[in-house]
């Protein structure tokens, strides 16, 4: 009996890999949930032999995590914060990688008056004016920050109003809450495409196309001068691959389960 226990214990101890030859990429939940990484990372591994482990959290959390040295590269969509991080010396070697856009969504039963308003911020003005319920990510994600910038452009401070709900959840969940509450919200097109026909939502796009809704993704490495343990060689290899012809082609050829291209490569 003792021998069985000993064998079991040894098996368990040996079976847990404590270390791994890998780089850690801090990215966002919407990028992860789109399935992009599941598609492009095996291609990268085949070309370079490097394993990339993606930790998907909100954009704000991803940047903070990287600043603490808990990641080797960052792949988010908050260009202003990324550039600020570069300026402050936390990150190096930033490149644009790909883009898509945000869309404003609302109850299927709402009218078509929003598209004619011309600017995304005007839509927000109308929502605040009529006190329509609005669901915000409220989690410092890229989408949340885009939403806040639009409120800023509209000259409105929505916090504290009953009609404004900060849910602190991922995009998919937030949209389901919005649907339940017959509320408006803002989402990246990728998540919208993946969920709109699932039967879970009673919503539609009410506004799209404003350049303000442009969503740029960027990649950068954690500065090895700040954190000497960063695997800088592999991190740079990942960045170089993402902006290379092969990487950009991989991103462009990625399609979701319904055949939609979710991201447009734009590293030039």
């Amino acid at each position, binding site marked *: 009996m003792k021998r069985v226990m000993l064998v079991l214990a040894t098996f*368990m101890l040996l079976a847990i890999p*404590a270390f*791994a030859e890998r780089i850690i990429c801090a990215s966002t*939940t919407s990028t992860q*949930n789109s399935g992009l990484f599941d598609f492009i990372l095996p291609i990268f591994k085949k070309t370079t032999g490097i394993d990339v*482990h*993606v*930790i998907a959290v909100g954009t704000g959390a991803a940047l903070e995590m990287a600043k603490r*040295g808990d990641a080797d590269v960052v792949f988010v969509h908050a260009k202003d914060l990324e550039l600020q991080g570069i300026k402050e010396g936390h990150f190096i070697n930033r490149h644009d990688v790909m883009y898509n856009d945000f869309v404003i969504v609302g109850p299927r039963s709402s009218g078509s008056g929003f598209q004619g308003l011309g600017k995304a911020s005007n839509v927000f003005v109308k929502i605040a004016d009529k006190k329509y319920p609005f669901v915000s990510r409220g989690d410092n994600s890229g989408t949340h920050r885009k939403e806040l910038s639009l409120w800023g452009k509209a000259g409105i401070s929505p916090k504290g109003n009953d009609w404004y709900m900060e849910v602190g959840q991922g995009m998919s969940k937030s949209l389901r809450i919005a649907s339940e509450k017959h509320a408006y919200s803002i989402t990246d097109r990728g998540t919208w495409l993946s969920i709109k026909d699932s039967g879970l939502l009673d919503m539609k796009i009410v506004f799209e196309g404003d350049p303000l809704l442009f969503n740029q993704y960027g990649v950068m490495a954690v500065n090895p001068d700040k954190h000497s*343990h960063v695997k800088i060689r592999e991190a740079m290899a990942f960045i170089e691959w993402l902006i290379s012809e092969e990487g950009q082609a991989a991103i462009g050829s990625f399609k979701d389960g319904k055949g939609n291209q979710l991201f447009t490569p734009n590293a030039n």
Partner: protein
Amino acid sequence: MDFILESTKQAFLLITSFDNELVSIIVLSLKVSGLALFLATIIGLPIGTAIGLYRIKGHSFIITVLHTMMGLPPVTVGLFVYLFLSRSGPLGFLGFLYTPAAMVIAQMILAAPIVASLVHSAIINVDPVIKQASITLGATPIQASMAVIREARYGIISSLLAGFGRLMAEVGAVIIVGGNIAGYTRVMTTTIALETDKGNFELAVALGIVLLLVSFMVNAATHYAQRTSLIPLT
């Protein structure tokens, strides 16, 4: 009702297909929680026994603390372990963050108080004559303790199963310190959380059913082993 039937059907299909990814997720869950329980037992069993058998100073205080720690919120434990294992933290040099090792550490901390408390309960319910008789027959304190442990073995095994059940079911700690990395730190509960987040409800429920089945099988195997005396605990 439709949804439940659909999910059960999907669970059945998942299990019988022996899908590679599912199997590796289940195996990792068992490894992480199993190893964490093993380590928690090494810590908790001696403590629970010592407090149960001997009048140590601060006796009641220790027991109260142990019982309180049984209710440690997993997400809080996860946060603290994260802060310690982060590169900016004191144990960052280990490089354990976002590896299964970090998950084992967090779960070990969760399970140790449970094992200690429940072992203590099992020990104090043993007839005191066992300990006294052992000492009369010339046993050392360690040998006397082992006799009492042997007597309490069914209660102790139940404590370990309770600890194991709690670990297999928790998600807050392992998702924070493990990072839910596909193929590396993704376990049953974190997969359920992810699929729920993505709106794949049927898959999430199916995984929940699988999780319950796995737990059931572990419990059944253990009880069978107890009944047929495969676990004599000497």
